[in-house]
């Protein structure tokens, strides 16, 4: 916020060293002006950006996150931006599952010669975020609720299953699965979608059951889905030893996150 109380977006930028960071420098050398909203972190490649970094950025107060890399085909490391694209795409969906507007995350390409383009992208993204307001506001989430959802999203971004799926996407589509059977892109996306939503639900339940014991029905109410959808995930969490039954209230067993 400025002294006048007007909302000024806080934007975190991850820029690759070779193209987009150089493009941002060129904007400076050319004196192309843009709003002072972005805080840039230099990485060697957009492929270095772990989705968990982006979630962390949101949880530390970013209202929007920009990930900028080399144009497709121009990656300094040949394929880094391709992996960035897969990861950010999946992360966008994850944010959506967490009730965070996907417009708050942006992946785009800026070459070393595109100073003007960089300035324009930051200006436009700033306007977009300015219109959305602070993170959580247009989502209708309290800060506690927001942080809990981000914690769940972070857990998913760190999950072995998700990271494996996203990492293998390129190979699976190009070379087929472990049996060298070609994988249909649509089938892959459906699998990823299913895994993301299941993992996110499990993570949310785990976050909910961190401080207090909850019944399946209470959990279902808190996350806004039917108890029959929650039940198998509670069972899975219990089986994995992540939550345990700590008591029974009436006829409902209550679960809480384990040590």
């Amino acid at each position, binding site marked *: 916020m*400025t002294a006048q109380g007007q909302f000024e977006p806080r934007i975190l930028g991850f820029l690759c060293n070779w193209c987009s960071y150089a493009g941002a420098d060129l904007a400076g050398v050319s004196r192309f002006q843009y*709003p*002072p909203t972005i805080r840039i972190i230099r990485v060697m490649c957009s492929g270095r950006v772990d989705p968990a970094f982006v979630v962390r950025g949101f949880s530390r107060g970013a209202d929007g996150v920009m990930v900028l890399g080399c144009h497709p085909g121009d990656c300094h490391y040949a394929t880094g931006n391709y992996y960035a694209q897969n990861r950010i795409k999946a992360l966008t969906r994850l944010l959506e599952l967490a009730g965070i507007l996907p417009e708050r995350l942006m992946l785009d390409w800026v070459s*070393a010669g595109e100073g003007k383009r960089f300035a324009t992208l930051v200006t436009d993204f700033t306007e977009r975020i300015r219109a959305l307001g602070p993170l959580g506001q247009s989502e209708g989430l309290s800060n506690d609720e927001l942080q809990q959802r981000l914690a769940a999203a972070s857990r998913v971004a760190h999950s072995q299953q998700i990271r494996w799926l996203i990492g293998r996407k390129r190979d699976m589509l190009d070379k087929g699965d472990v049996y060298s059977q070609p994988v249909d892109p649509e089938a892959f996306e459906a699998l990823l979608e299913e895994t993301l939503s299941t993992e996110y639900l499990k993570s949310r339940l785990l976050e909910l059951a961190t401080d207090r014991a909850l019944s399946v029905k209470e959990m279902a109410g808190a996350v806004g889905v039917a108890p029959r959808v929650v039940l198998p995930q509670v069972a899975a969490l219990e089986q994995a030893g992540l939550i345990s039954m700590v008591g029974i209230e009436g006829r409902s067993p209550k679960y809480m996150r384990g040590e």
Partner: protein
Amino acid sequence: MSEAKVGVFVCHCGSNIAGFLDLPALVEYTQQLPNVAFVQDNLYTCADAGRAQIAKAIAEQDLNRVVVASCTPRTHEPLFRSTCQQAGLNPYLFEFVNIRDQCSWVHMQEREQATEKAKDLIRMGVARAVFLEPGEEIEVDVVPAALVVGAGLAGLTAALSLANRGLEVKLVEREPTMGGLLRSKHRLYPTGEGARSWIAAKIEAAKKHPNIEVFTEAEVRAVRGFVGNYEVVVEQGGREFGFSVGAVIVATGAKVFEPIGQYGYDGSKVVTQAEFEKSLVDQHGELDPGVHSIVMIQCVGSRNEERPYCSRICCMTAVKNALFIKEANPEVGVYVIYRDMLTLGAVYEALYREARGRGVIFLQYSPDAPPTVGDGQVTVYDELLGQTLTVPSDLVVLASPLVGQDGAADLAQMLKVPVDEHGFFLEAHVKLRPLDFATDGMYLCGCAHWPSDVGETVAQAHGAAARAAILLGAGAVAVEPIVSVVDENACIGCGLCETVCPYKAIVLKDTEVGRKASTIAASCKGCGVCGAGCPEQAITMQHYSNQQLLAQIDALAEMAG
């Protein structure tokens, strides 16, 4: 290492930073940041005095981390790293915070908010610096060969310069014939020799040189890799050629702006200076019959809103051609209508005086009242006389500027180097590295860089070749130790890293504790794709570790709210 003691040096960069940010507030803010033991602002941190201050503070304050908040790491990180090293601090304990190119220069009207941004950036940089670890550079071999793109005067000169040092050169030219703009030039100033035969000699020399392989009617399709080891693909006649080089020199030249719609430009009675000169070449120095008076108009399409730059070569070209006309045909009238005559240096200025002495008439116009071209005459308000003059003209010659070469932006994107808004390639630093790109192992010369005349182009080409030869002659180059690091305890040997690595720089190996990922440091280029995707988060990158990046992200939280 013991507790972090960070020294922060905030650079004024003259007024480039201090003129747009509140430096005293920035310094005061930085002083109270955690782990910051010392803060100093310098007029120019990169100057001898500034670097001496860093060395002094490392010694006296016992600093174990140094942060410089200044221009950009892309030009000055190596300098400050070496300052640290000379002062006994490992260069990888240095962190750069960009508050000029990405702050003061892009928020020139927002002093308060730009200062807040600089505070955030410094806070984030210090947070990262705390977790920096010492690193040792890795030596990689250099391929002793160069790619020179463009075989005009700049490219030919650079290629010959390198080839004469015994280095292998691949010279790639898009046109069927080498020689570039000079092929259609008549005479060269200041000496007056024939341009065509002069460039022809260079073309012959390049063709015959055993160290130069020439590709004409060929285009560079791909350049991948790193300093000392670039993989190049060139397409010629539908065939692709691949080879490795250690360095790349961009010498793609410029093209002449076509002044369509200006001063009745029609390519016959109203022509560009380039077209006029071409006709002199074609007609062996003869003017068209019936041409008794020639009017040259300067700055046509340059030094205006769209193209604010001076094309630099047009004034001397006008003087050169005017002198030639007067020498060959003293009776022909020559008028040069100019805004400002730019004839730099003793020799060029003497030629300008000589032209006046031989009867060339120079008339100054103002851009507010440009000359008007009529039938057989040109009318102009002469600024010096203060009156409107009409002069006869059988031929009007327009000095149109050089503009960026066709395809420059595409080549720039392929090489990952910048071009400016006019399509000219941009050097790493105008004074410190005028012939280098910021990307190591890439250089530039000639009109690809900026309109330059023959003498300047030759000097630049020799300079770029010399810069490249330093690298190519060294045999090896030290690269940053930004490589993947595997935590064997966390690694489950899944092999995803091996799958995604574009360099085969991380492989599974059998160890006593099972199959584990293992980095081949000499092959690793540091992209971090493996680390960002490792299912167990068992891989991180040296100098861009998870811990360092997360600390930087976390420091965003204290952003001025």
